[in-house]
């Protein structure tokens, strides 16, 4: 059996509309190994959330999805709603960005978590209630019995996000997809949630696809990172390697825009230009227009996937290292 909990290969997602088709995901390839946290970073509109929704089969019927997505060995694309329902919750669960809107304000939080559990598992209400208390304890909610009967408005953002994590984990999924789960929270609460997730991964044989735009959070939490730009992963590898020696110009540019404490007050660098229009076909490298190391070939030919280190890959013509083996097997198809 494969040790990959999530495997996405050559994913393409297009949203058709009357005037133009938006090609939101272009040949995106990534995977999450068992027991690891993969950080998926990129700016707004780079396709992070669409990728994660596709992994759960949550894109609406109007989206045209092509490629392969395997969650714990099971194919997601073109499955019926009933088949997907069996995978969701039990094999893979999701936490959303804003805990204030993800919960129903009319129901007690304990009941909402219990509903999620009873939806996918046969058990008595009494048993379910016990499991919810345990889940609340696991996410370090103080006084689980009191928390159970609280309504969302009676809790703080940090507490609500813990409830969301408890709801995702109560069905014991193998993969957790977390879409910017700390973005709406204060830094002190963010630090609490990061430490909690680290602990849960160590304890529960859990794997996480962690979507964020914050490279600091990636450094603090993730084992590997995949950087997205214009609908594709442009660089991926172990966090220690990618952040220390980024091989794609977009990754290095992104890192330089982050203001850091203790940095001198020279002008912050920024990435000039705009993200490409996703409704127009991209010829060559999508980052070429904004790249400082651009050469002629970048405008003409899509860059191949190169192995710059054992496990660090880069889609850049200027990156050193051999073209990745699977690329050659697939006939150089990007």
């Amino acid at each position, binding site marked *: 059996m494969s040790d990959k909990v999530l495997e996405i290969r050559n994913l393409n997602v297009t949203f058709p509309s009357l005037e133009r088709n938006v090609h939101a995901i272009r040949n995106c390839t990534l995977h999450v190994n068992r027991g690891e946290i993969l950080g998926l970073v990129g*700016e*707004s509109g780079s396709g992070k959330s669409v990728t994660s929704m596709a992994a759960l089969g949550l894109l609406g019927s109007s989206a045209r999805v092509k490629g392969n997505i395997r969650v714990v060995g099971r194919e997601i694309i073109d499955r019926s709603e009933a088949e997907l329902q069996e995978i969701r919750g039990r094999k893979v669960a999701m936490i959303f960005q804003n805990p204030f809107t993800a919960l129903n304000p009319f129901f007690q939080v304990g009941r909402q978590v219990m509903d999620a559990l009873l939806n996918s598992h046969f058990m008595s209400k009494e048993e379910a209630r016990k499991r919810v208390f345990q889940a609340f304890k696991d996410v370090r909610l103080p006084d689980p019995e009191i928390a159970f009967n609280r309504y969302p408005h009676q809790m*703080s*953002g*940090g*507490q609500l996000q813990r409830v969301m994590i408890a709801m995702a984990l109560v069905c014991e999924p193998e993969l957790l997809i977390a879409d910017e789960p700390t973005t709406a929270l*204060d*830094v*002190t*609460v*963010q*630090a*609490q949630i*990061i*430490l909690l997730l680290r602990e849960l991964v160590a304890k529960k044989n859990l794997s996480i696809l962690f979507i964020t*735009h*914050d*490279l*600091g*959070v*990636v*450094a*603090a*939490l993730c084992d590997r990172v995949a950087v997205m730009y214009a609908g594709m992963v442009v660089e991926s590898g172990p*966090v*220690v390697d990618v*952040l*220390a020696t980024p091989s794609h110009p977009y990754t290095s*540019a*992104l*890192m330089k*825009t*982050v*203001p*850091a*404490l*203790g*940095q001198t*007050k020279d*002008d*912050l*660098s*920024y*990435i000039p230009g*705009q993200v490409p229009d996703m409704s127009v076909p991209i010829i060559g490298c999508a980052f070429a227009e904004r790249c400082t190391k651009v050469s002629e070939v970048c405008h003409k030919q899509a860059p191949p996937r190169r192995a710059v280190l054992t496990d660090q890959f880069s889609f850049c013509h200027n990156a050193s290292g051999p073209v990745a083996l699977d690329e050659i097997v697939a006939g150089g198809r990007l």
Partner: protein
Amino acid sequence: MNALLSVKNLQKVYPTKVGMIKAVDDVSFDVAAGETVALVGESGCGKSSIALSLLQLISSDGGTVHFDGTDFTSLSDQQRQQFRKKLSIVFQNPFSSLNPKMRVRDIVGEPLKTVFGLKGSKLEERVAQHLRDVGLGREHLKRYPHEFSGGQRQRIAIARALALEPRMLILDEPTAALDVSVQAQVLNLLKELQAKHGLSFLFISHNLATVNYIADRVMVMYLGRIVESGPVHSIFSSPAHPYTQALLASIPSLDPLKKNQLVALSGEVPSPLSLPAGCAFANRCPYASDLCRTLRPDLLSKSEAWAVACHHPIQGEED
């Protein structure tokens, strides 16, 4: 030092069904001409209440706000209009602060029309000039907000705030809704505009790294009170208040090898409805003593420009 903005003992209380919430409790500070002062703290600590009551967009419940020598709080609404052109504000979210049914020309032009009575080509000329200041071209005049990216919208909001040539800008989390790559552009733009027009900034943020980049002085708030204030480089290199220290320690570093240095504060912010008797931070503070739980510490000077409200301030290397 001659203060452009001088706030003394500012109070803001929100009455609720279950009691009074002191959102701003006895806050005093000055901002000098050309200076950038940052106000940092977590959600609900009172940052935005201060911003809004400085402009009297919400009425304050005590204290004075002197701007350029005049007490802002004692003015009538009409007199206040005249003053508002000297003190302007940029809000957090450029997706909601710009009217979606107005063209950029009208968004930036409206204050020029109502205050300076400009019309026709003169008005258009001025609007184009303000847009150029923030790096937007003439071709944008006829467009609507939805045709712009987040960063461009925030530039439009800045152009609107600068249209009346104010002496000071209140920036309420101006980059919180933007991507980092765009955030850098907006921060650089603000610095450039400050140098060009000699503006003062009150920069409100929960992002300490951006504060480090843009501000001269910083004030750290916790539950409605300032707990530490002073020069950014001194406070960020050796914080005296345990809360400031905790805030700094909870920022993840870009260096993955330092990931074990991330420290999370335990516990939660106490409810503003039932504040503890002593120091509001005592229940989460690793250094708290019995004194802290009974007597609230005052904001006292530690050195000339540096003040801290703590019974057991951390002794830094600079002492």
